[in-house]
């Protein structure tokens, strides 16, 4: 790459610089026959019911322990598809790049995207790039859009849940949010926490195989954390939720940092976790299957759905007392994903 290896406004012009960028960066990393045709739209074969989702990523800083904006952009969309029991078929990636951005950094982020896509697995089949003048964007924003094939015939949604369903969580809470905040230099102490950012289709496929039609609901507790997922589920399902504080997986480092900073692990963002509601008869099977995979090694049964107090989430503390779990408020932690 010429021109001091930085993104210039010309890279977004659609002319020769743009072609060079596409070939040297995007095609070099996202090795896919559909993408390589460079058509304006990718042609995919639709096997049946389709899930379709999109997610914009504006995390700051771009690289943090355990991940980067590229890994996040792929995992975020793959996981949203997975909540609909959809196997990812193809991703579109749109890059908004600030003039002056080092191309070596872009290369590294694209390499990470490619590795995450291979892990999912999913192909990046189409994309777009825009360059904006210096100051008009903070480095790099990536929007990914995904299409997936729904692999089950039964409904997987809040409406499909029933009283008595068990709630499972695939692993520990709060790692992503605190890893990003620590990488931002916001803390005056060091924090040994890595983001959990990971694509979860493999884990979800395993859970579906173990749970079958008894797996009623899945959602990834990203912004707003577990508290938001549960509060939304209770409202949408018109059921109450009981969770047990002692069963919630939280690492010692996250717990201590939350204590210092006044955060609640229940409200912190995760990027590699999934919440499942499963009919009681199959809950142990699904939990066992989750624990058999590395992403689910710390999976736990965290609570149940009930006809009591519909629309509300109750937490039983380790002291046997009970209280409500509410959605967090406002701009708790901006630009975390």
């Amino acid at each position, binding site marked *: 790459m010429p021109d001091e290896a930085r993104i210039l406004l010309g890279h977004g012009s659609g002319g020769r610089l743009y072609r060079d960028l596409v070939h040297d960066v995007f095609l070099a990393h996202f090795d896919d026959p559909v993408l390589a045709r460079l058509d304006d739209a990718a042609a995919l074969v639709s096997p049946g*019911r389709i899930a379709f989702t999109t997610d914009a990523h504006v995390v700051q800083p771009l690289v943090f322990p355990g991940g980067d904006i590229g890994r996040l952009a792929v995992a975020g969309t793959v996981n949203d598809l997975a909540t609909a029991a959809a196997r990812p078929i193809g991703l579109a990636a749109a890059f908004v790049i600030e003039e002056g951005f080092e191309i070596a950094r872009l290369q590294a982020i694209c390499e990470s995207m490619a590795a995450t896509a291979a892990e999912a697995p999913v192909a990046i089949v189409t994309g777009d790039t825009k360059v904006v003048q210096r100051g008009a964007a903070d480095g790099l924003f990536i929007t990914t859009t995904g299409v997936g094939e729904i692999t089950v015939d039964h409904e997987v949604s809040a409406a499909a849940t029933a009283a008595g369903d068990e709630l499972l969580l695939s692993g520990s809470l709060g790692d992503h949010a605190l890893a990003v905040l620590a990488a931002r230099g916001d803390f005056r102490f060091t924090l040994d926490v890595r983001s959990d950012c990971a694509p979860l289709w493999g884990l979800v496929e395993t859970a579906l195989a173990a749970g079958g039609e008894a797996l009623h609901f899945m959602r990834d507790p990203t912004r707003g954390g577990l508290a938001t997922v549960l509060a939304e589920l209770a409202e949408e399902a018109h059921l109450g939720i009981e969770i047990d504080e002692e069963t919630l997986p939280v690492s010692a480092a996250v717990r201590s940092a939350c204590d210092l900073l006044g955060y609640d692990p229940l409200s912190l963002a995760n990027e590699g976790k999934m919440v499942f509601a499963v009919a009681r008869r199959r809950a142990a099977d699904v939990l066992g299957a989750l624990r058999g995979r590395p992403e689910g090694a710390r999976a736990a049964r965290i609570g149940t759905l009930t006809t009591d107090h519909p629309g509300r989430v109750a937490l039983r503390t380790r002291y046997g*007392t009970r209280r409500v779990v509410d959605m967090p408020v406002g701009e708790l932690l901006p630009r975390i994903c």
Partner: protein
Amino acid sequence: MTAPGSADADRVARLAVALAGVARGERTYMEVCGTHTMAVSRFGLRDLLPPGVRLVSGPGCPVCVTAVGDLDVVVALARLPGVVIATFGDLVRVPSSRSSLARERAAGADVRVVYSPADAVELAAAEPDRQFVLAGIGFETTAPTVAGALLLARERGLANFSVLSLHKTMPGALRALLDSGESRIDGFILPGHVSVVTGSDCYRFLPDEYGIGGVVAGFEADDVLEALVMLARQRRPAIEIGYRRAVTAAGNRVAQQLLARVFEPCDAVWRGLGAIPGSGLRLSDEFREYATEERFAVDAGTPVEPAGCRCGEVLRGLIDPPQCALFGRRCTPETPVGACMVSSEGSCAAHYRYRAIDADVGDAANRVEPPGAATDAGTGDAATHGPAAADA
């Protein structure tokens, strides 16, 4: 370091039984400190209190007791060109008479959230062309860190850093509370963090002059229950320390000397308590040049308390937050009317966030999204399309 909620569950259960054994009749105890308020609610400790024992919150949440008029001054300063307001996060969302720092920021003001006062000094050093005003709130716990930041700023010769000192000291507030004659308090759970600095001797006037005992407590579930047991066991009012791992009678002399050098007492206005002589801290003569009021004169207008808001009565322990008609209805953490619903240490926020499961606050129906909050619309993360979805 131990994490919150790490207290031994059996010990908590034993203390709850002990409290039931020693508690006699109707007793109202005040937890003075906002961190205690939050701990009581988060651990659900009210469930463990015997009938007759009531806990009320006191004036120990720094954001909550900051007067509306002082907030108006901060807002007016934020509007000055070239001025940056550095503040702790909670203050940003507290409504002032006609605005809030969050609104000012959306309208273009430069408001930065810092985690420690020293961060504000670093910001000022990095941007010498802007004037940084640290909105200094808090009690004897926070004031020494602001004093440290001032020493740092002077050492580095920063001419673009100043402190709007809204700091307050706790003993005077308790005296004012008791002098008002409205509050019926049988004992105080005294602030653990503040007392690390001040020591416990400064509370001797409570038993000596008012005949009311107090226990300095830590912030775990067992700390709070143990303090209640100690209070219930007191035959004659006294000041005791339950938080012996951190607090002594004399306190931290180094921090006290730093406070005495950088600050001097002044009169202060408290939300809910009004003007209390000698209960504030302003910069001493030696550091007066760093006082924001020496650099900028602003007209903040006449303070207006929010209509219907009963924060004042909450801060005096006269009512529980749910007794306010606005609580959980017009006033929620998303759309706060009063400061006590904003601060993470505020009594209203603690009661709301960690309310009992059967509490009537009309929550789901009245929930309002905060302005500008970007949330996924709809109910799911992925839309589904196809024949089966169309059938559904």
